[in-house]
């Protein structure tokens, strides 16, 4: 059976969307090393920022621009109030960020109500691609994902800030004694990662139901993508997102969505065991 090229486009779309969603996590988890279970709620905050800005009559684009700033600030506060205080206790960070997630979610319920909202895509309608109508906003999200990938690569590998961040990751102690303000760098990176989550939330909002639970569905695939990624940088995350997002899309296309989630989860477990095995081997 010849593969319908539209299915490949769908898989590409899902992989790129997942990359956008996971890029913030790649920074906070992959680089800073914080297991942030509130990542989905940072996306949620981004989507609701876009909703609030749209309701204020400023339109979608203003919301898309504001969401990373608002959520970046939220991330900064989360780091300052919670995560920084638990730096040496990673398991407690898990609990604390989960609690933060609950707080964000119920705050959204209190402010906006429990019901679903819609954000209309700024450019409605679709273009015909490969013989099927393709919504313009999907293409926009895909383009934005590529843009974020380029921005991340540039920041990390072509700027002095990126060099310092990479230095702090490679060896925290050595970086500190070399005079780098490691704490400040980590706080900055965390806020930046949160801002990326906010951007992803606002960008994907017109494709989804915007409701207080929307962050949850993103958390697992995003973590999987970052976990299976070879290395924490943007290239690794892109490969992780392609494996998880693209894989899920293709299995769903040829089998079923239930099988797709199972397959991706099973694949991730196998991959992780191999990675963990390799690491253990190296350390020995």
């Amino acid at each position: 059976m010849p593969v319908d090229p539209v299915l490949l486009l769908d898989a590409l779309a899902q992989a790129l969307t997942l990359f956008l969603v996971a890029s913030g996590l790649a920074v906070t988890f992959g680089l800073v090393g914080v297991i942030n279970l509130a990542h989905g709620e940072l996306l949620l905050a981004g989507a609701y920022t876009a909703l609030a800005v749209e309701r204020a009559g400023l339109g979608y684009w203003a919301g898309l621009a504001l969401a990373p700033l608002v959520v970046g600030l939220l991330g900064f506060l989360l780091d300052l109030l919670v995560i920084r205080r638990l730096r040496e206790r990673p398991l407690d960070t898990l609990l604390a960020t989960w609690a933060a997630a609950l707080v964000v979610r119920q705050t959204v319920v209190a402010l906006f109500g429990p019901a679903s909202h819609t954000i209309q895509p700024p450019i409605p309608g679709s273009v015909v691609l490969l013989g099927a109508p393709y919504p313009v906003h999907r293409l926009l999200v895909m383009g934005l994902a590529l843009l974020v990938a380029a921005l991340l690569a540039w920041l990390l590998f072509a700027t002095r800030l990126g060099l310092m961040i990479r230095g702090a990751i490679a060896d925290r102690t050595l970086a500190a004694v070399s005079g780098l303000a490691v704490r400040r760098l980590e706080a900055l990176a965390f806020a930046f990662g949160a801002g990326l989550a906010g951007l992803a939330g606002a960008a994907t909002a017109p494709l989804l139901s915007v409701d207080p639970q929307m962050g949850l569905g993103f958390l697992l695939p995003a973590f999987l993508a970052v976990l299976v990624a070879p290395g924490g940088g943007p290239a690794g995350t892109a490969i992780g997102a392609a494996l998880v997002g693209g894989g899920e899309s293709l299995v769903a296309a040829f089998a079923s969505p239930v099988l797709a989630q199972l397959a991706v989860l099973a694949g991730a477990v196998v991959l992780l065991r191999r990675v963990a095995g390799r690491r253990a081997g190296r350390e020995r």
Partner: protein
Amino acid sequence: MITTRRRALAGALATTLFTTGSFVAPRTARAQGAPVKVGAVLPFSGGLELFGQQAKLGLDLAAAEINEAGGILGRPVELVYEDNKTDPKTSVEKATRLITRDEVVAICGPITSSARDAMAPTMARGRTPLLYATNYEGGACGRYIFCFNTVPNQELAKLVPYLARTKGNRFYCFGADYVWPQRMFQHARKLVDGLGGTIVGEELTPFGVKEFAPVIRRIEASGAQVLLFALPGADGITFIRQAEDLGLLRKLTVGFLGFSEAYLGAFGPGRGQEMYVAVPFVASAEATGPKDFVARIRARAGQDAVVSHYVMTHWLALTALARALRKVGRIDREAVVEGLEGLTVEAPTGPVTIGAKDHHVTLAMFLAKTRGDQLVTVEALGPQAPEAGCA
């Protein structure tokens, strides 16, 4: 008769409100004595807040109306709400507390089947009736459980033939991977087979999926004319949005099982149109009963309050409880069971009869569809008896 009395009451209430500017209950019919406590275990946090709030609207109105009419055998009814956080384990804890600490005569709720199934043994052990008023898959039977909303046959019996007749008899079933959609599709298959139609595909999805493009392509490729859709909540909204974006909704008609007014407004202006459902209550209906009911809810909860069938069925559950106790002439848990069995209650949509054996309701159903920003009646289907699935 009942309608006019309620109307007079509502009128008196409105007058009081407008003339004095504050709420004063009519003094003539004040209930005396220790309150009759009725528990309510509902989700007010944790995901299904929307349904918890809908249920509360109905229960609050029923309690107010019962008390304005003199209470139950002279005693006022008092609702004790507990938040189950959309969680089965919490539901059991709250039910236990209501039964032992508050000594309620019955408990209304919950919303999900998992919470209901978890609570059932506790209710039976505590010999306390559970008044469940959410549409579900059927099969919840026992002396201490009463169901005031629909089971699959009531929702599907007229909907499937209508869609087959007017839209085509090639069906595709797509829903969430749990018991309610599975039972819905089992029943739909029987109906479609009987009509000489075909089910060209049946497929289930886990919750939390954000990207439905692969499924949408497959449904499109199947050549289905009708999509029977049973994916409740936010995921369902996401699917419909993407199906519309990808052009699927132009090629087939959606029978959105479990749809209600609670979904309206989630698709955006002019979108999510012409989706069909069979429901026990349509808020936009022109008939006096529903119109009056919606007005009574909105007089208390505000003019933009959403009124779905969940409001009506929860109102019905508490109203029936009051009638049952008045009929038996005694206030205790067994009296609730005795009184409810075989009882007929006048609902806004007409008489509702509670089965003496199966404890499920025979009630009027309406074929409805989305149009503009409303759910509108297509056809009144008349009373539909439940196939409760009690062995």
